[in-house]
């Protein structure tokens, strides 16, 4: 994924700490978000991602450190004077106003004439695909439409930063996926810095230029989606982003090449660049994604190495099939994904099969 906008910093967190009484909610956040970037804060509930977002909007104070927006310290700036606007998780559409009045809510102090403002409202409604909905009562809208009103209401003020707090979590799957794509397009169109909070790793991977994964009030890893997926900084991050298989490992020798003995796979040499951060249990493991394992049908050769395995579970998805397999000499089920190709049968539970794998696709957590 390439990121080609001007790379000046829009938001900067400098050693941000936040306490709620005794509870240490943010534990030294350092990060900078570039102008025009689509940035996601990803983590399980309670990790501090929403709190961090709200420190940018001004709804949460911080205990120490600094939050800078566009080069300016936000410490003494109240929410109504910050160059940021927010899309709330509940959308917070004003129920007593029409769609138009909601979208135009923030224009009260705008010096432009009534007609110009009305035109602006119309243009913004068009931008979010709600042309013709202006006169509707806000409470009569569907979830997806409310979402668009919330977006329009924030975007009409042309903020430097748009903050989105789990904006898609209340929508059903189909509309959510559609909105993800629309949001990406919208962000490219308006060029505003988007900061998204989500607990949905797939959503973060799909939409973001960069993602900060947060656990327990700290940023565990900040990277582009592909790097985050390919080389998680720790086993905990790996577990949170997508599915990863782990096998216990013994490290035999260190250096530019690391020699290891992996349960069931035997002696494996990996490059130093494949060595990542901490394993969760303290004991080294290698991790690999489901798509890096391949079932080898009769007559097929492994591109790299292969092992015998038994199919324990088959999950058929139409275009894909997920298998849980146990490689000989190991005691755990590994998730394996195969694209379904015409003429290649889906295997049954209990089938013995060869499985192809590559040392180059492994990540070593130690």
């Amino acid at each position: 994924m390439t990121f080609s906008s001007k790379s000046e910093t829009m938001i900067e967190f400098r050693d941000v700490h936040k306490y709620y009484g005794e509870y240490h909610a943010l534990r030294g956040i350092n990060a900078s978000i570039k102008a025009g970037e689509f940035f996601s804060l990803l983590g399980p509930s309670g990790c501090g991602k929403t709190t961090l977002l709200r420190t940018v909007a001004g709804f949460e104070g911080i205990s120490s450190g600094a939050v800078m927006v566009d080069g300016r310290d936000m410490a003494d700036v109240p929410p109504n004077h910050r160059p940021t606007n927010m899309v709330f998780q509940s959308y917070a559409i004003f129920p007593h106003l029409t769609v138009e009045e909601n979208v135009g809510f923030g224009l009260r102090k705008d010096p432009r004439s009534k007609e110009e403002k009305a035109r602006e409202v119309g243009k913004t409604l068009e931008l979010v695909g709600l042309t013709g909905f202006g006169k509707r009562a806000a409470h009569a809208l569907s979830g997806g439409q409310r979402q668009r009103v919330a977006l329009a209401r924030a975007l009409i003020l042309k903020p430097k930063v748009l903050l989105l707090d789990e904006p898609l979590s209340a929508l059903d799957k189909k509309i959510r996926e559609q909105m993800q794509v629309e949001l990406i397009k919208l962000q490219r169109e308006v060029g505003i810095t988007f900061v998204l909070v989500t607990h949905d790793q797939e959503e973060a991977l799909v939409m973001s230029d960069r993602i900060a994964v947060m656990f327990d009030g700290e940023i565990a890893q900040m990277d582009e989606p592909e790097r985050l997926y390919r080389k998680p900084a720790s086993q905990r991050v790996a577990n949170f982003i997508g599915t990863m298989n782990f096998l216990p490992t013994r490290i035999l020798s260190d250096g530019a090449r690391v020699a290891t003995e992996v349960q069931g796979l035997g002696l494996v040499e990996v490059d130093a660049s494949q060595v990542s951060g901490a394993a969760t249990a303290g004991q080294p493991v290698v991790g690999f994604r489901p798509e890096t394992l391949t079932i080898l049908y009769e007559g097929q050769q492994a591109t790299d190495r292969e092992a015998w395995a038994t199919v324990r579970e088959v999950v058929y998805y139409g275009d894909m099939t997920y298998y849980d397999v146990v490689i000989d000499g190991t005691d755990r089920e590994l998730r394996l994904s195969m694209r379904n190709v015409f003429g290649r049968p889906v295997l049954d539970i209990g089938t013995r099969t060869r499985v192809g794998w590559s040392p180059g696709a492994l990540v070593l957590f130690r």
Partner: protein
Amino acid sequence: MKFPALKTYTVAYLLFLYAPILLLPIFAFNDSKIIAFPLQGFTTGWFRMMWADDALFKALRNSLIVGISTSIMATTLGIFAARASTRYAFPGKAAGLGLIMLPMVLPEMIMSMSMLVVFLAIGIPLNLFTIILGHVLVCTPFAVAILTSAFQSLDKSLEEAAQDLGEGPFSTFWRVILPLVMPGIISSALITFTISLDEFIIAFFLGGTETTLSVYIFGQFRFPARVPSIMALGTILVCLSIALLTTAEYFRRRGIARTGAKDTGGFL
């Protein structure tokens, strides 16, 4: 219904509750000074007699002054208390709210006696103003209860959204919070007005020489000849109450319809 006995009981209960009220208009139009069956014939004379009674109109005027002032003051105080109790956390909040709500269950006799003692001791003359003070004391808990539920149902992020869109605390209150709690405010105003209107003990103790409608009506019962015209007055009050409650309900339902909230039942 599965149990016919329960049905009978329900009907009997409702009759017991509302049938006496129906007697008011019946005797208001009955051509006899004695309140008893059989009825003697139709007359509107009692209404004319009531209409000619200057003392009654003075009492009515007093009641309206007391009722409207009480309603405005209690509802205003209620807005402050409800806002504070739903939005902020501060030490002593539970105790403070408990004390505000206490007059709801405290015997009015005790309150009016103690207020009377205090007013006399510090030399405040008894008049409509002292009645208003007493009424505000007993009406504020009702206002707080009604308004707290109105403020509680308000999503906090609506307020944050208004701030986020550039509004300060005051204009946020004005543009977002107030319109959304308006049905609650109207409810509170009407109910505190009604409570003040028919309150007797405080009005009797703290009124001095001023008479409110309730005290006036009580006084009139000493003269049997005046009773039928009191029935006429009662009839008018019943009609006005129904009109008032219907208005309150209309505003409540409209408020709910406008915000698209779920109707959880009102008075009617």
